[in-house]
């Protein structure tokens, strides 16, 4: 026996979940949505998914090579970013634009700010908004062989009544991963059961959004309209997979609820009054920017902490 004993500060044991295991859980939870997207939009969807993931991972690898840092691609976070970005793209997007999006997500939004844990904005959504501005026409072209009509959100905006069942299952136009509410909810349940996320952000987000739409949606207490709004566009994917991104959401328990409320209000605002039918991406990245402020005003009360005495003794 060698006599060298390890010495370190307690605790001397660790739980099983590691960063890459959590990322793997997220990938697993995205699987139903991904598979449905490929099934719904065909092999081109698969191509875009593979390309954005490859572009994200490669960008991270190259970036870290250049700045002489240890490679972190094995933590799988770049894979998650790549997949989320692909799920937020229309299947008609030229492949090189998707690749560029991946480069932007990792190099500009993530690595420039210090890599995993340091970025203040969700990389996938940052890249999506970048692409939306840079290639507006391509990014809003949802016309495929199967779906020649408008997206459900755009249709509703024009006063049409959409088939809620289609939106629930996902047989509609839209980005690769946003159409099937059911697939997203299956993923959400996986995330919750595996303890990756809690309901704090998605619930406060969706509840706020519903309240906003009831008041300002212009359809009054029309449940059909509310459900159609919830099942269309990126709100489900956004609420469960993007707003819950650890790095860019508050860490304080009350902050998470407040953050969800911000996302809900902004989404409602953009959907009701914006130039575009869609608003989830912008709502979330704008809320991301509010996180430091939200955290500052939601420092939790410590156990046994009594409020500062204000009156008398």
């Amino acid at each position, binding site marked *: 026996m060698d006599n060298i*004993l390890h010495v370190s500060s*307690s*605790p*001397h044991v*660790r739980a099983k979940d590691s960063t890459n295991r959590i990322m793997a859980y997220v990938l697993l939870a995205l699987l139903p949505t991904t598979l449905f997207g490929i099934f719904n939009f065909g092999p081109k969807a698969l191509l875009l998914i593979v390309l954005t993931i490859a572009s994200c991972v490669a960008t991270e690898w190259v970036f870290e090579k250049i700045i002489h840092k240890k490679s972190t691609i094995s933590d799988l976070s770049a894979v998650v970013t790549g997949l989320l970005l692909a799920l937020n793209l229309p299947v008609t997007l030229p492949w090189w634009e998707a690749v560029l999006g991946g480069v932007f997500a990792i190099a500009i939004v993530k690595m420039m700010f210090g*890599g995993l844990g340091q970025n203040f904005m969700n990389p996938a959504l940052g890249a999506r908004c970048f692409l939306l501005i840079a290639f507006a026409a391509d990014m809003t072209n949802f016309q495929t062989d199967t779906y020649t009509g408008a997206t459900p959100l755009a249709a509703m905006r024009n006063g049409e009544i959409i088939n809620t069942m289609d939106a629930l299952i996902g047989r509609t136009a839209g980005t690769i991963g946003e159409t099937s509410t059911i697939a997203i909810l299956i993923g959400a349940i996986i995330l919750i059961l595996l303890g990756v996320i809690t309901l704090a952000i998605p619930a406060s987000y969706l509840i706020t959004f519903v309240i906003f739409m009831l008041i300002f949606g212009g359809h009054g207490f029309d449940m059909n309209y509310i459900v159609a709004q919830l099942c269309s566009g990126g709100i489900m994917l956004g609420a469960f997979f993007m707003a819950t991104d650890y790095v860019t959401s508050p860490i*304080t328990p009350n902050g998470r609820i407040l953050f969800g409320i911000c996302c809900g209000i902004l989404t409602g605002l953009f959907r009701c009054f914006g130039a575009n039918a869609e608003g989830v991406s912008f709502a979330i990245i704008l809320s991301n920017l509010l996180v430091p402020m939200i955290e500052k005003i939601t420092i*939790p009360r*410590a*156990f046994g902490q009594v409020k500062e005495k204000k009156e008398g003794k």
Partner: protein
Amino acid sequence: MGLRTFKGGVHPFEGKDLSKDKPVEEYLPKGDLVFPVSQHIGAPANPVVAVGDTVKKGQLIAEAGGFVSANIYSSVSGTVKAIALHRVATGDMVNSIVIENDGSYEEVEYDAVEDITALSKEEIIERVKKAGVVGMGGAGFPTHVKLSPKEPDKIDYIIANCAECEPYLTSDYRRMMDQPELLVGGLKIVLQLFDNAKGVLGVENNKPDCIAKLQELCRDEPRIEVVPLQTKYPQGGERQLIKAVSGREINSKMLPADAGCIVDNVETLVCIYRAVKEGKPVISRIFTVTGDAVNHPRNFYVSVGTNYAELLEAAGGLKESGAEKMISGGPMMGFSMFDLNVPITKTNSSLLCLSSDDVSHLEPSACINCGRCVEACPELLVPSRLAKQANLKLGEEFEKWNGMECIECGSCSFICPARRPLAQSIKTMKKDILAARRKK
């Protein structure tokens, strides 16, 4: 309704099966015994023997150095060999009395009492103080101080800390299974001091046999209740236990007595009983030698002052594969040791030998802000943020985010998926801030 508990906490691997069913064996020390004069919180005790003196088992060798301090007694008969600095389990060097064991274990006479109920409150506290009873769960706070709160009438809970939430430890478990009457006896003595209090034995529900046994024993004790608690670390943390039992919360600036509670752990209550009833000082305790690297994990009835290495040999020594980490105490809050040539003190309850050191094989990565540490923190803090502030030495921010409330339980480091040593950073910062405050 669920079991009573607190918010937060973690579920580490329990590891208690290794030693929990091993009967307690009495171990008679062979080599020299070492008695550090600081085995408690407060002023060190002052030696009352000199080199060359002969002492008996149970003889006072160091006298309390103030009110918050405790007497120290020899656990063997023999000759005082030296009074010098000696290493203790925490790694510190502490002035210690070294006694050469003559192997005869000649014992002094103790003044036992027939009827405890005939003793006055002052007499009870005096007997506890004389025996050198301290918090035997690890903190080492002198018990007679705890039993003398400013307003004794306001104490309405005497809580026996039977949680034993640290993984691997089984000394309290064995005590509860083998001699529950000593524990309950100790609790009854403390209840005698506080007329308005009720006694509560808080036991984690992973020890149903203990719960049943204690319930059986306390059936005819109207003032004592056995409360099963949810098995969760750190259920045995003083503040967490008070919360679970009474629903009250205390912070770092308060004492349990401020919430009307007095908390003593199993071994302490046993020592109180022995001190009051039998007049016996604290010279022995139950000690567990365990871990996957030990040949025969087991529980010992040991003399205070016994050498760790000697006791490890008594447990069959290490397996051939050896140990990478040796811990005094449990894996969550224990101290890792680089030298086993240290004595068992009143507050040490176990030696844990692990064949593989989990921690050093894992590399910390970037914090992903997942918030698991926030969910785990029993003090409802934001450990990842505190650790960051600590690393940047932002004392003011650290205090604003309530960093000083940390109880150093280690739940945050345990749960962190990025394997960051959060508790370590926070503990260091706390020490720095406390040191700076003292300087002022």
